[in-house]
Protein backbone atom coordinates (compact mmCIF):
# COMPACT_ATOMS: atom_id res chain seq x y z
CA UNK A 1 0.00 0.00 0.00
CA UNK A 2 1.45 3.40 -0.96
CA UNK A 3 2.59 5.39 2.06
CA UNK A 4 1.88 9.10 1.96
CA UNK A 5 3.33 11.80 4.22
CA UNK A 6 1.53 15.13 4.48
CA UNK A 7 3.26 18.10 6.12
CA UNK A 8 1.59 21.44 6.78
CA UNK A 9 1.69 23.70 9.82
CA UNK A 10 -2.06 24.08 9.58
CA UNK A 11 -3.88 21.06 10.98
CA UNK A 12 -7.09 21.91 9.09
CA UNK A 13 -5.29 21.51 5.80
CA UNK A 14 -3.97 18.12 6.85
CA UNK A 15 -7.41 16.97 7.97
CA UNK A 16 -9.13 18.09 4.81
CA UNK A 17 -6.45 16.48 2.63
CA UNK A 18 -6.76 13.22 4.49
CA UNK A 19 -10.55 13.29 4.24
CA UNK A 20 -10.53 14.17 0.57
CA UNK A 21 -8.05 11.46 -0.34
CA UNK A 22 -9.83 8.78 1.65
CA UNK A 23 -13.27 9.79 0.39
CA UNK A 24 -12.13 9.59 -3.23
CA UNK A 25 -14.32 7.20 -5.25
CA UNK A 26 -13.14 3.62 -5.23
CA UNK A 27 -10.63 2.92 -7.95
CA UNK A 28 -9.09 6.39 -7.87
CA UNK A 29 -5.95 4.83 -6.44
CA UNK A 30 -4.90 1.32 -7.40
CA UNK A 31 -4.22 0.57 -3.72
CA UNK A 32 -5.66 2.33 -0.70
CA UNK A 33 -3.30 5.00 0.63
CA UNK A 34 -1.73 4.92 4.06
CA UNK A 35 -1.56 8.54 5.17
CA UNK A 36 0.50 10.07 7.96
CA UNK A 37 0.23 13.77 8.73
CA UNK A 38 2.66 16.11 10.47
CA UNK A 39 2.33 19.74 11.52
CA UNK A 40 6.06 19.89 12.24
CA UNK A 41 8.70 19.31 9.55
CA UNK A 42 11.27 18.12 12.09
CA UNK A 43 8.91 15.54 13.51
CA UNK A 44 8.21 14.44 9.95
CA UNK A 45 11.96 14.07 9.35
CA UNK A 46 12.35 12.01 12.48
CA UNK A 47 9.56 9.74 11.32
CA UNK A 48 11.20 9.45 7.89
CA UNK A 49 14.20 7.94 9.64
CA UNK A 50 12.00 5.12 10.89
CA UNK A 51 9.73 4.33 8.01
CA UNK A 52 9.80 4.51 4.23
CA UNK A 53 7.35 6.77 2.38
CA UNK A 54 6.47 6.70 -1.26
CA UNK A 55 5.30 10.28 -1.52
CA UNK A 56 5.49 13.41 0.57
CA UNK A 57 3.39 16.54 0.06
CA UNK A 58 4.61 19.56 1.97
CA UNK A 59 3.48 23.12 2.49
CA UNK A 60 5.99 25.78 1.47
CA UNK A 61 5.68 28.35 4.25
CA UNK A 62 6.14 26.80 7.66
CA UNK A 63 7.54 28.28 10.85
CA UNK A 64 10.37 25.80 11.51
CA UNK A 65 11.76 25.54 8.02
CA UNK A 66 10.34 26.16 4.59
CA UNK A 67 9.12 23.36 2.36
CA UNK A 68 12.22 23.39 0.17
CA UNK A 69 14.61 23.00 3.11
CA UNK A 70 12.42 20.24 4.52
CA UNK A 71 12.26 18.29 1.27
CA UNK A 72 16.02 18.63 0.75
CA UNK A 73 16.68 17.11 4.16
CA UNK A 74 14.10 14.43 3.52
CA UNK A 75 15.78 13.54 0.25
CA UNK A 76 19.04 12.96 2.16
CA UNK A 77 17.23 10.35 4.26
CA UNK A 78 15.02 8.88 1.54
CA UNK A 79 16.43 9.72 -1.87
CA UNK A 80 13.66 7.92 -3.74
CA UNK A 81 10.63 9.51 -2.12
CA UNK A 82 8.45 11.45 -4.56
CA UNK A 83 8.15 15.09 -3.49
CA UNK A 84 5.42 17.66 -4.04
CA UNK A 85 4.76 21.13 -2.69
CA UNK A 86 1.27 22.39 -1.96
CA UNK A 87 1.33 26.11 -1.35
CA UNK A 88 -0.84 29.20 -1.35
CA UNK A 89 2.27 31.24 -1.80
CA UNK A 90 3.64 31.06 -5.28
CA UNK A 91 6.42 33.51 -5.85
CA UNK A 92 8.96 32.77 -8.50
CA UNK A 93 11.90 32.38 -6.12
CA UNK A 94 10.11 29.72 -4.08
CA UNK A 95 9.17 27.91 -7.25
CA UNK A 96 12.72 27.91 -8.62
CA UNK A 97 14.14 26.68 -5.32
CA UNK A 98 11.52 23.95 -5.15
CA UNK A 99 12.41 22.67 -8.60
CA UNK A 100 16.18 23.14 -8.55
CA UNK A 101 16.99 22.31 -4.95
CA UNK A 102 14.22 20.07 -3.68
CA UNK A 103 13.68 18.53 -7.14
CA UNK A 104 9.96 18.31 -6.66
CA UNK A 105 7.67 16.36 -8.94
CA UNK A 106 4.77 18.84 -8.82
CA UNK A 107 4.01 22.29 -7.41
CA UNK A 108 0.32 22.58 -6.57
CA UNK A 109 -1.35 25.84 -5.63
CA UNK A 110 -3.80 26.38 -2.81
CA UNK A 111 -6.72 26.23 -3.05
CA UNK A 112 -6.31 22.94 -4.82
CA UNK A 113 -8.75 20.78 -6.73
CA UNK A 114 -9.16 17.38 -5.04
CA UNK A 115 -9.35 15.49 -8.31
CA UNK A 116 -6.30 17.19 -9.78
CA UNK A 117 -4.45 16.39 -6.60
CA UNK A 118 -5.47 12.74 -6.77
CA UNK A 119 -4.30 12.61 -10.37
CA UNK A 120 -0.94 14.13 -9.46
CA UNK A 121 -0.53 11.66 -6.61
CA UNK A 122 -1.21 8.72 -8.93
CA UNK A 123 1.28 9.97 -11.46
CA UNK A 124 3.93 10.59 -8.82
CA UNK A 125 3.46 7.09 -7.42
CA UNK A 126 3.67 5.50 -10.86
CA UNK A 127 6.77 7.51 -11.63
CA UNK A 128 8.43 6.42 -8.39
CA UNK A 129 7.48 2.79 -8.95
CA UNK A 130 9.03 2.93 -12.40
CA UNK A 131 12.25 4.45 -11.10
CA UNK A 132 12.55 1.84 -8.37
CA UNK A 133 11.72 -1.01 -10.73
CA UNK A 134 14.34 0.26 -13.10
CA UNK A 135 16.96 0.39 -10.35
CA UNK A 136 16.07 -3.12 -9.19
CA UNK A 137 16.32 -4.55 -12.66
CA UNK A 138 19.62 -2.80 -13.19
CA UNK A 139 20.92 -4.27 -9.93
CA UNK A 140 19.72 -7.70 -10.98
CA UNK A 141 21.63 -7.41 -14.24
CA UNK A 142 24.70 -6.29 -12.31
CA UNK A 143 24.44 -9.33 -10.03
CA UNK A 144 24.06 -11.60 -13.04
CA UNK A 145 27.10 -10.01 -14.65
CA UNK A 146 28.99 -10.45 -11.40
CA UNK A 147 29.52 -6.73 -10.90
CA UNK A 148 27.43 -6.68 -7.72
CA UNK A 149 27.62 -9.30 -4.99
CA UNK A 150 24.47 -10.80 -3.52
CA UNK A 151 25.53 -9.25 -0.24
CA UNK A 152 25.69 -5.77 -1.63
CA UNK A 153 22.28 -6.25 -3.21
CA UNK A 154 20.84 -7.38 0.11
CA UNK A 155 22.28 -4.29 1.81
CA UNK A 156 20.72 -2.05 -0.83
CA UNK A 157 17.32 -3.66 -0.40
CA UNK A 158 17.64 -3.32 3.35
CA UNK A 159 18.46 0.36 3.07
CA UNK A 160 15.44 0.84 0.86
CA UNK A 161 13.15 -0.64 3.46
CA UNK A 162 14.83 0.78 6.56
CA UNK A 163 16.47 4.06 5.63
CA UNK A 164 19.73 4.71 7.46
CA UNK A 165 20.12 1.15 8.73
CA UNK A 166 23.23 0.49 6.70
CA UNK A 167 24.89 3.67 7.92
CA UNK A 168 24.91 2.79 11.61
CA UNK A 169 27.68 4.61 13.48
CA UNK A 170 29.64 2.86 16.14
CA UNK A 171 31.30 4.38 19.15
CA UNK A 172 35.03 3.64 19.57
CA UNK A 173 34.09 0.88 22.02
CA UNK A 174 31.93 -0.79 19.37
CA UNK A 175 28.55 0.17 20.77
CA UNK A 176 25.93 1.43 18.26
CA UNK A 177 25.45 5.21 18.19
CA UNK A 178 21.74 5.95 17.98
CA UNK A 179 22.22 9.74 18.04
CA UNK A 180 22.22 10.40 14.33
CA UNK A 181 19.64 13.10 14.33
CA UNK A 182 22.13 15.83 13.45
CA UNK A 183 22.70 14.08 10.19
CA UNK A 184 19.12 14.76 9.15
Amino acid at each position, binding site marked *: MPRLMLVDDEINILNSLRR*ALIAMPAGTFSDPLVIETFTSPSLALARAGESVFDLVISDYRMPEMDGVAFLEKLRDVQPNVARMILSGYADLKALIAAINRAEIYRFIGKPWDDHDLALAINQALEHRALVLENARLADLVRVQQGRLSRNELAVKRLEERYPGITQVKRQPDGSIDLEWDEEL
Partner: protein
Amino acid sequence: MAESMSEDHVELILPSDTPRSILELRLATLELLDDGVWISETDGNVIYRNVAAAAMEQMYWSHGGHVGTIEDVVFNPGVLQLLRDRGRWSAEYHLSSGDEDGARVSSVAMEMQLLNAQGIPGIAFHARDVSREWSREQTLQDRNVELEQAYSRLKETQTQLLQSEKMASIGQLAAGVAHEINNPIGYVQSNMGTLQTYVRGLLNLLDSYERWASELSDGASAAREQIEEIKRQIDYSFLRDDLLQLLEESREGIKRVKKIVLDLRDFSHRGQTDSDEWMSVDIHRGLESTINIVWNELKYKAEVQRNFGDLPAVECMPSQMNQVFLNLLVNAGQAIKERGVISVTTTCLDREICVAIADDGVGIAPEHLKRIFDPFFTTKPVGAGTGLGLALSFGIVKNHHGRIEVESKVGKGTCFRVYLPLRKHGRNNLGQTAPGTTV
Protein backbone atom coordinates in the same frame (compact mmCIF):
# COMPACT_ATOMS: atom_id res chain seq x y z
CA MET B 1 -20.67 122.67 -19.74
CA ALA B 2 -17.59 120.54 -19.98
CA GLU B 3 -16.14 122.05 -16.84
CA SER B 4 -18.98 120.87 -14.70
CA MET B 5 -19.10 117.34 -16.08
CA SER B 6 -15.88 115.80 -14.97
CA GLU B 7 -12.67 116.34 -13.12
CA ASP B 8 -10.99 114.29 -15.75
CA HIS B 9 -10.75 116.90 -18.41
CA VAL B 10 -7.43 118.57 -19.02
CA GLU B 11 -6.77 122.24 -18.50
CA LEU B 12 -4.17 123.58 -20.83
CA ILE B 13 -3.00 126.67 -19.14
CA LEU B 14 -0.38 128.66 -20.91
CA PRO B 15 1.04 131.85 -19.51
CA SER B 16 -0.34 134.78 -21.50
CA ASP B 17 3.14 135.94 -22.36
CA THR B 18 4.15 132.63 -23.88
CA PRO B 19 6.14 133.49 -26.93
CA ARG B 20 4.39 132.54 -30.08
CA SER B 21 7.48 130.58 -31.10
CA ILE B 22 6.87 128.11 -28.22
CA LEU B 23 3.32 127.52 -29.42
CA GLU B 24 4.63 126.92 -32.89
CA LEU B 25 7.23 124.51 -31.53
CA ARG B 26 4.54 122.59 -29.71
CA LEU B 27 2.56 122.17 -32.84
CA ALA B 28 5.69 121.16 -34.71
CA THR B 29 6.42 118.56 -32.03
CA LEU B 30 2.92 117.12 -32.43
CA GLU B 31 3.65 116.72 -36.13
CA LEU B 32 6.68 114.60 -35.30
CA LEU B 33 4.74 112.02 -33.31
CA ASP B 34 4.03 108.58 -34.68
CA ASP B 35 0.74 108.62 -32.82
CA GLY B 36 -2.24 110.30 -34.39
CA VAL B 37 -3.52 113.41 -32.63
CA TRP B 38 -6.81 115.16 -33.41
CA ILE B 39 -8.28 118.25 -31.85
CA SER B 40 -11.92 119.01 -32.33
CA GLU B 41 -14.55 121.38 -31.09
CA THR B 42 -16.99 120.04 -28.55
CA ASP B 43 -19.45 119.16 -31.29
CA GLY B 44 -16.89 116.84 -32.91
CA ASN B 45 -15.82 119.16 -35.71
CA VAL B 46 -12.13 118.35 -36.23
CA ILE B 47 -10.03 121.48 -36.36
CA TYR B 48 -6.57 119.96 -36.22
CA ARG B 49 -4.93 116.64 -37.13
CA ASN B 50 -1.25 115.90 -37.22
CA VAL B 51 0.50 114.06 -40.04
CA ALA B 52 0.24 110.67 -38.39
CA ALA B 53 -3.46 111.24 -37.77
CA ALA B 54 -4.07 112.04 -41.40
CA ALA B 55 -2.21 108.90 -42.44
CA MET B 56 -4.18 106.78 -40.05
CA GLU B 57 -7.47 108.17 -41.27
CA GLN B 58 -6.41 107.36 -44.75
CA MET B 59 -5.43 103.87 -43.74
CA TYR B 60 -8.14 102.80 -41.37
CA TRP B 61 -11.19 104.91 -41.72
CA SER B 62 -11.83 106.79 -44.84
CA HIS B 63 -10.17 104.29 -47.10
CA GLY B 64 -11.74 101.08 -48.31
CA GLY B 65 -14.96 101.87 -46.57
CA HIS B 66 -14.54 99.06 -44.03
CA VAL B 67 -15.70 101.01 -41.09
CA GLY B 68 -16.60 104.48 -42.21
CA THR B 69 -15.02 107.88 -41.84
CA ILE B 70 -13.47 109.08 -38.63
CA GLU B 71 -16.50 111.27 -38.09
CA ASP B 72 -18.75 108.21 -38.34
CA VAL B 73 -16.68 106.03 -36.08
CA VAL B 74 -15.14 108.32 -33.52
CA PHE B 75 -16.63 111.78 -33.54
CA ASN B 76 -20.21 110.53 -33.63
CA PRO B 77 -22.99 111.63 -31.27
CA GLY B 78 -22.90 108.41 -29.27
CA VAL B 79 -19.23 108.64 -28.48
CA LEU B 80 -19.46 112.36 -27.75
CA GLN B 81 -22.30 111.69 -25.32
CA LEU B 82 -20.21 109.07 -23.55
CA LEU B 83 -17.35 111.51 -23.45
CA ARG B 84 -19.50 114.21 -21.92
CA ASP B 85 -20.77 111.75 -19.33
CA ARG B 86 -17.40 110.41 -18.33
CA GLY B 87 -14.94 113.03 -19.43
CA ARG B 88 -12.88 110.35 -21.16
CA TRP B 89 -13.45 107.64 -23.72
CA SER B 90 -11.13 104.94 -24.87
CA ALA B 91 -11.35 101.95 -27.12
CA GLU B 92 -9.30 99.48 -29.04
CA TYR B 93 -10.08 98.63 -32.65
CA HIS B 94 -8.85 95.69 -34.60
CA LEU B 95 -9.15 96.45 -38.24
CA SER B 96 -8.09 94.58 -41.24
CA SER B 97 -5.95 96.92 -43.29
CA GLY B 98 -6.94 98.07 -46.71
CA ASP B 99 -5.22 95.11 -48.35
CA GLU B 100 -7.57 92.99 -50.42
CA ASP B 101 -6.68 89.74 -48.67
CA GLY B 102 -7.36 91.38 -45.30
CA ALA B 103 -4.86 89.06 -43.74
CA ARG B 104 -2.99 91.64 -41.75
CA VAL B 105 -4.85 92.95 -38.78
CA SER B 106 -4.02 96.34 -37.37
CA SER B 107 -4.87 97.21 -33.85
CA VAL B 108 -5.44 100.80 -32.80
CA ALA B 109 -5.73 101.99 -29.23
CA MET B 110 -7.70 105.22 -28.98
CA GLU B 111 -8.33 107.69 -26.28
CA MET B 112 -10.45 110.82 -26.31
CA GLN B 113 -10.76 113.41 -23.59
CA LEU B 114 -12.27 116.82 -22.98
CA LEU B 115 -9.91 119.76 -22.91
CA ASN B 116 -10.12 123.24 -21.73
CA ALA B 117 -7.47 125.64 -22.95
CA GLN B 118 -7.81 129.04 -21.35
CA GLY B 119 -11.56 128.87 -21.36
CA ILE B 120 -11.86 127.36 -24.81
CA PRO B 121 -13.41 123.88 -24.55
CA GLY B 122 -12.44 121.20 -27.00
CA ILE B 123 -11.74 117.54 -27.51
CA ALA B 124 -8.38 115.84 -27.85
CA PHE B 125 -8.29 112.51 -29.61
CA HIS B 126 -5.25 110.31 -29.65
CA ALA B 127 -4.71 107.03 -31.50
CA ARG B 128 -1.77 104.68 -31.48
CA ASP B 129 -1.03 101.73 -33.68
CA VAL B 130 -0.60 98.84 -31.21
CA SER B 131 -0.49 96.06 -33.78
CA ARG B 132 2.90 94.94 -32.59
CA GLU B 133 1.96 95.01 -28.92
CA TRP B 134 -1.22 93.29 -29.76
CA SER B 135 0.45 90.47 -31.66
CA ARG B 136 2.90 90.13 -28.80
CA GLU B 137 0.00 89.84 -26.46
CA GLN B 138 -1.54 87.25 -28.73
CA THR B 139 1.65 85.23 -28.60
CA LEU B 140 1.66 85.55 -24.85
CA GLN B 141 -1.89 84.36 -24.70
CA ASP B 142 -1.06 81.40 -26.91
CA ARG B 143 1.88 80.57 -24.65
CA ASN B 144 -0.37 80.86 -21.69
CA VAL B 145 -2.81 78.40 -23.17
CA GLU B 146 0.05 76.03 -23.90
CA LEU B 147 1.30 76.40 -20.34
CA GLU B 148 -2.13 75.75 -18.97
CA GLN B 149 -2.37 72.62 -21.06
CA ALA B 150 1.05 71.50 -19.92
CA TYR B 151 0.02 72.15 -16.36
CA SER B 152 -3.15 70.12 -16.64
CA ARG B 153 -1.17 67.30 -18.27
CA LEU B 154 1.32 67.47 -15.44
CA LYS B 155 -1.49 67.37 -12.94
CA GLU B 156 -2.96 64.39 -14.68
CA THR B 157 0.40 62.66 -14.62
CA GLN B 158 0.66 63.44 -10.94
CA THR B 159 -2.71 61.88 -10.21
CA GLN B 160 -1.69 58.87 -12.25
CA LEU B 161 1.54 58.68 -10.28
CA LEU B 162 -0.33 58.94 -7.02
CA GLN B 163 -2.64 56.26 -8.27
CA SER B 164 0.28 53.96 -9.10
CA GLU B 165 1.78 54.60 -5.67
CA LYS B 166 -1.48 53.63 -4.11
CA MET B 167 -1.61 50.54 -6.31
CA ALA B 168 1.90 49.50 -5.39
CA SER B 169 1.26 49.58 -1.66
CA ILE B 170 -2.08 47.87 -2.02
CA GLY B 171 -0.42 45.31 -4.26
CA GLN B 172 2.04 44.38 -1.54
CA LEU B 173 -0.75 44.11 0.96
CA ALA B 174 -2.79 42.05 -1.45
CA ALA B 175 -0.04 39.50 -2.01
CA GLY B 176 0.16 38.83 1.72
CA VAL B 177 -3.57 38.71 2.16
CA ALA B 178 -3.97 36.37 -0.81
CA HIS B 179 -1.64 33.86 0.77
CA GLU B 180 -3.38 34.04 4.11
CA ILE B 181 -6.75 33.50 2.49
CA ASN B 182 -5.58 30.65 0.27
CA ASN B 183 -4.95 28.36 3.23
CA PRO B 184 -8.43 28.48 4.77
CA ILE B 185 -10.06 28.56 1.35
CA GLY B 186 -7.99 25.55 0.43
CA TYR B 187 -9.33 23.34 3.17
CA VAL B 188 -12.84 24.75 3.18
CA GLN B 189 -13.15 24.01 -0.51
CA SER B 190 -11.74 20.56 -0.17
CA ASN B 191 -13.95 19.86 2.85
CA MET B 192 -17.03 21.02 1.01
CA GLY B 193 -16.23 18.55 -1.74
CA THR B 194 -15.74 15.75 0.74
CA LEU B 195 -18.85 16.80 2.62
CA GLN B 196 -20.86 16.43 -0.56
CA THR B 197 -19.56 12.88 -0.89
CA TYR B 198 -20.35 12.17 2.76
CA VAL B 199 -23.85 13.60 2.46
CA ARG B 200 -24.57 11.59 -0.64
CA GLY B 201 -23.46 8.50 1.23
CA LEU B 202 -25.62 9.32 4.23
CA LEU B 203 -28.64 10.02 2.07
CA ASN B 204 -28.09 6.68 0.42
CA LEU B 205 -28.06 5.05 3.80
CA LEU B 206 -31.20 6.92 4.83
CA ASP B 207 -33.00 5.81 1.68
CA SER B 208 -32.13 2.26 2.55
CA TYR B 209 -33.47 2.71 6.10
CA GLU B 210 -36.64 4.24 4.63
CA ARG B 211 -37.25 1.24 2.44
CA TRP B 212 -36.80 -1.19 5.28
CA ALA B 213 -38.82 0.95 7.72
CA SER B 214 -41.82 0.72 5.42
CA GLU B 215 -41.57 -3.03 5.66
CA LEU B 216 -41.52 -3.07 9.44
CA SER B 217 -44.14 -5.41 10.85
CA ASP B 218 -47.23 -3.92 12.42
CA GLY B 219 -45.86 -4.77 15.84
CA ALA B 220 -43.26 -2.07 15.36
CA SER B 221 -45.79 0.69 14.72
CA ALA B 222 -44.47 2.61 17.74
CA ALA B 223 -41.06 2.77 16.17
CA ARG B 224 -42.56 3.87 12.89
CA GLU B 225 -44.53 6.63 14.61
CA GLN B 226 -41.43 7.87 16.35
CA ILE B 227 -39.60 8.04 13.06
CA GLU B 228 -42.47 9.94 11.44
CA GLU B 229 -42.53 12.36 14.40
CA ILE B 230 -38.87 13.19 14.04
CA LYS B 231 -39.32 13.62 10.30
CA ARG B 232 -42.06 16.14 10.94
CA GLN B 233 -40.00 17.98 13.51
CA ILE B 234 -37.04 18.50 11.24
CA ASP B 235 -39.18 18.92 8.12
CA TYR B 236 -37.34 16.01 6.56
CA SER B 237 -38.48 16.29 2.96
CA PHE B 238 -37.52 19.97 2.75
CA LEU B 239 -34.21 19.39 4.53
CA ARG B 240 -33.38 16.60 2.13
CA ASP B 241 -34.04 18.75 -0.91
CA ASP B 242 -32.33 21.79 0.53
CA LEU B 243 -29.22 20.02 1.78
CA LEU B 244 -27.64 19.49 -1.62
CA GLN B 245 -28.66 22.95 -2.79
CA LEU B 246 -27.06 24.45 0.30
CA LEU B 247 -23.84 22.62 -0.40
CA GLU B 248 -23.88 23.73 -4.02
CA GLU B 249 -24.43 27.36 -2.99
CA SER B 250 -21.61 27.19 -0.47
CA ARG B 251 -19.26 25.85 -3.12
CA GLU B 252 -20.36 28.67 -5.37
CA GLY B 253 -19.46 31.13 -2.62
CA ILE B 254 -16.03 29.63 -2.23
CA LYS B 255 -15.53 29.79 -5.96
CA ARG B 256 -16.22 33.49 -5.75
CA VAL B 257 -13.73 34.05 -2.95
CA LYS B 258 -11.22 32.08 -4.99
CA LYS B 259 -11.78 34.36 -7.95
CA ILE B 260 -11.27 37.44 -5.81
CA VAL B 261 -8.03 36.08 -4.41
CA LEU B 262 -6.88 35.16 -7.88
CA ASP B 263 -7.66 38.66 -9.15
CA LEU B 264 -5.83 40.06 -6.16
CA ARG B 265 -2.82 37.96 -6.89
CA ASP B 266 -2.87 38.94 -10.56
CA PHE B 267 -3.14 42.51 -9.45
CA SER B 268 -0.17 42.35 -7.09
CA HIS B 269 1.96 40.36 -9.49
CA ARG B 270 1.59 42.81 -12.34
CA GLY B 271 4.87 44.43 -13.06
CA GLN B 272 6.85 41.99 -10.97
CA THR B 273 6.84 39.14 -13.37
CA ASP B 274 7.52 39.46 -17.02
CA SER B 275 5.84 36.18 -17.71
CA ASP B 276 3.64 37.58 -20.45
CA GLU B 277 5.49 38.12 -23.63
CA TRP B 278 5.79 41.34 -25.53
CA MET B 279 4.70 40.91 -29.10
CA SER B 280 3.95 43.01 -32.10
CA VAL B 281 0.28 42.39 -32.63
CA ASP B 282 -2.82 43.50 -34.50
CA ILE B 283 -4.95 45.13 -31.81
CA HIS B 284 -8.09 44.56 -33.88
CA ARG B 285 -7.71 40.81 -33.63
CA GLY B 286 -7.40 41.06 -29.87
CA LEU B 287 -10.51 43.24 -29.76
CA GLU B 288 -12.46 40.83 -31.96
CA SER B 289 -11.58 37.80 -29.89
CA THR B 290 -12.35 39.68 -26.68
CA ILE B 291 -15.72 40.81 -28.03
CA ASN B 292 -16.42 37.17 -28.87
CA ILE B 293 -15.64 36.13 -25.34
CA VAL B 294 -18.04 38.63 -23.79
CA TRP B 295 -20.63 38.28 -26.52
CA ASN B 296 -22.74 35.98 -24.37
CA GLU B 297 -23.02 38.67 -21.74
CA LEU B 298 -23.64 41.46 -24.19
CA LYS B 299 -25.88 40.07 -26.89
CA TYR B 300 -29.19 40.53 -25.06
CA LYS B 301 -28.69 44.17 -24.23
CA ALA B 302 -26.22 45.75 -26.55
CA GLU B 303 -25.27 46.13 -30.13
CA VAL B 304 -21.53 46.38 -30.66
CA GLN B 305 -20.44 48.92 -33.25
CA ARG B 306 -16.93 48.62 -34.55
CA ASN B 307 -15.35 51.79 -35.89
CA PHE B 308 -11.93 50.42 -36.62
CA GLY B 309 -9.37 52.74 -38.10
CA ASP B 310 -6.11 51.77 -39.79
CA LEU B 311 -3.77 50.56 -37.08
CA PRO B 312 -0.18 49.49 -37.41
CA ALA B 313 1.07 46.55 -35.37
CA VAL B 314 1.43 47.53 -31.72
CA GLU B 315 4.03 46.19 -29.35
CA CYS B 316 2.30 45.02 -26.20
CA MET B 317 1.54 42.06 -23.98
CA PRO B 318 -1.54 40.89 -25.87
CA SER B 319 -3.02 38.68 -23.17
CA GLN B 320 -2.86 41.55 -20.69
CA MET B 321 -4.27 44.09 -23.10
CA ASN B 322 -7.10 41.72 -23.95
CA GLN B 323 -7.87 41.57 -20.27
CA VAL B 324 -8.13 45.37 -20.22
CA PHE B 325 -10.53 45.31 -23.19
CA LEU B 326 -12.50 42.54 -21.52
CA ASN B 327 -12.90 44.55 -18.32
CA LEU B 328 -13.98 47.64 -20.23
CA LEU B 329 -16.45 45.72 -22.39
CA VAL B 330 -17.98 43.93 -19.41
CA ASN B 331 -18.30 47.25 -17.59
CA ALA B 332 -19.90 48.84 -20.66
CA GLY B 333 -22.38 45.97 -20.83
CA GLN B 334 -23.22 46.29 -17.16
CA ALA B 335 -23.76 50.04 -17.52
CA ILE B 336 -26.54 49.39 -20.01
CA LYS B 337 -29.75 48.63 -18.20
CA GLU B 338 -32.21 47.77 -20.98
CA ARG B 339 -30.81 48.01 -24.44
CA GLY B 340 -28.05 50.11 -25.87
CA VAL B 341 -25.04 50.49 -28.07
CA ILE B 342 -21.42 49.83 -27.27
CA SER B 343 -19.01 51.37 -29.70
CA VAL B 344 -15.43 50.28 -30.09
CA THR B 345 -13.39 52.88 -31.91
CA THR B 346 -9.72 52.65 -32.80
CA THR B 347 -7.58 55.47 -34.08
CA CYS B 348 -3.91 55.82 -34.83
CA LEU B 349 -2.31 58.95 -33.48
CA ASP B 350 1.22 60.20 -33.83
CA ARG B 351 3.17 57.65 -31.83
CA GLU B 352 0.33 55.91 -30.12
CA ILE B 353 -2.99 54.31 -30.77
CA CYS B 354 -6.27 54.96 -29.05
CA VAL B 355 -8.93 52.36 -28.34
CA ALA B 356 -12.17 53.97 -27.19
CA ILE B 357 -14.88 51.80 -25.69
CA ALA B 358 -18.07 53.78 -25.18
CA ASP B 359 -21.53 52.87 -23.98
CA ASP B 360 -24.79 54.77 -23.76
CA GLY B 361 -25.58 53.39 -20.34
CA VAL B 362 -26.18 54.89 -16.95
CA GLY B 363 -22.92 56.83 -16.70
CA ILE B 364 -20.70 57.41 -13.69
CA ALA B 365 -21.57 59.95 -11.02
CA PRO B 366 -18.99 62.76 -10.85
CA GLU B 367 -18.15 61.93 -7.24
CA HIS B 368 -17.35 58.35 -8.27
CA LEU B 369 -15.29 59.29 -11.28
CA LYS B 370 -12.21 60.04 -9.20
CA ARG B 371 -12.32 56.71 -7.47
CA ILE B 372 -13.11 54.24 -10.22
CA PHE B 373 -9.48 53.19 -10.58
CA ASP B 374 -9.10 52.59 -6.84
CA PRO B 375 -8.83 48.92 -5.93
CA PHE B 376 -11.99 47.53 -4.35
CA PHE B 377 -14.05 50.52 -5.41
CA THR B 378 -17.25 49.28 -6.97
CA THR B 379 -20.80 50.47 -7.35
CA LYS B 380 -21.99 47.10 -8.54
CA PRO B 381 -24.22 45.04 -6.27
CA VAL B 382 -22.45 42.74 -3.84
CA GLY B 383 -21.09 39.76 -5.68
CA ALA B 384 -21.26 41.29 -9.13
CA GLY B 385 -17.87 42.94 -9.03
CA THR B 386 -14.71 42.77 -7.00
CA GLY B 387 -13.75 46.37 -7.62
CA LEU B 388 -10.47 45.22 -9.08
CA GLY B 389 -11.22 45.25 -12.80
CA LEU B 390 -10.40 48.86 -13.49
CA ALA B 391 -7.56 48.96 -10.99
CA LEU B 392 -6.07 45.98 -12.78
CA SER B 393 -6.60 47.59 -16.17
CA PHE B 394 -5.00 50.78 -14.95
CA GLY B 395 -1.94 48.84 -13.80
CA ILE B 396 -1.64 46.95 -17.06
CA VAL B 397 -1.90 50.05 -19.21
CA LYS B 398 0.59 51.85 -16.98
CA ASN B 399 2.99 48.95 -17.46
CA HIS B 400 2.67 49.54 -21.17
CA HIS B 401 3.49 53.23 -20.58
CA GLY B 402 0.06 54.10 -21.88
CA ARG B 403 -2.84 55.77 -20.15
CA ILE B 404 -6.55 55.43 -19.63
CA GLU B 405 -8.89 58.38 -19.84
CA VAL B 406 -12.52 58.38 -18.93
CA GLU B 407 -15.37 60.66 -19.81
CA SER B 408 -18.83 60.13 -18.41
CA LYS B 409 -22.19 61.81 -18.14
CA VAL B 410 -24.83 60.45 -15.85
CA GLY B 411 -27.70 59.15 -17.97
CA LYS B 412 -25.76 59.62 -21.22
CA GLY B 413 -23.01 57.05 -21.02
CA THR B 414 -19.34 56.54 -20.48
CA CYS B 415 -16.32 56.42 -22.73
CA PHE B 416 -13.01 54.88 -21.77
CA ARG B 417 -10.03 55.69 -23.94
CA VAL B 418 -6.94 53.54 -23.76
CA TYR B 419 -3.81 55.06 -25.25
CA LEU B 420 -0.94 52.74 -26.05
CA PRO B 421 2.46 53.67 -27.43
CA LEU B 422 3.25 51.90 -30.70
CA ARG B 423 6.57 50.66 -29.39
CA LYS B 424 7.58 49.18 -26.09
CA HIS B 425 8.83 51.99 -23.93
CA GLY B 426 12.57 52.30 -23.23
CA ARG B 427 13.51 48.95 -24.69
CA ASN B 428 17.08 48.10 -23.96
CA ASN B 429 16.95 44.34 -23.68
CA LEU B 430 19.50 42.71 -25.89
CA GLY B 431 18.18 41.36 -29.11
CA GLN B 432 14.85 43.05 -28.77
CA THR B 433 15.61 46.44 -30.16
CA ALA B 434 14.38 46.77 -33.68
CA PRO B 435 16.43 49.01 -35.95
CA GLY B 436 15.10 52.50 -36.32
CA THR B 437 13.17 52.51 -33.11
CA THR B 438 12.88 56.00 -31.81
CA VAL B 439 11.58 55.79 -28.33
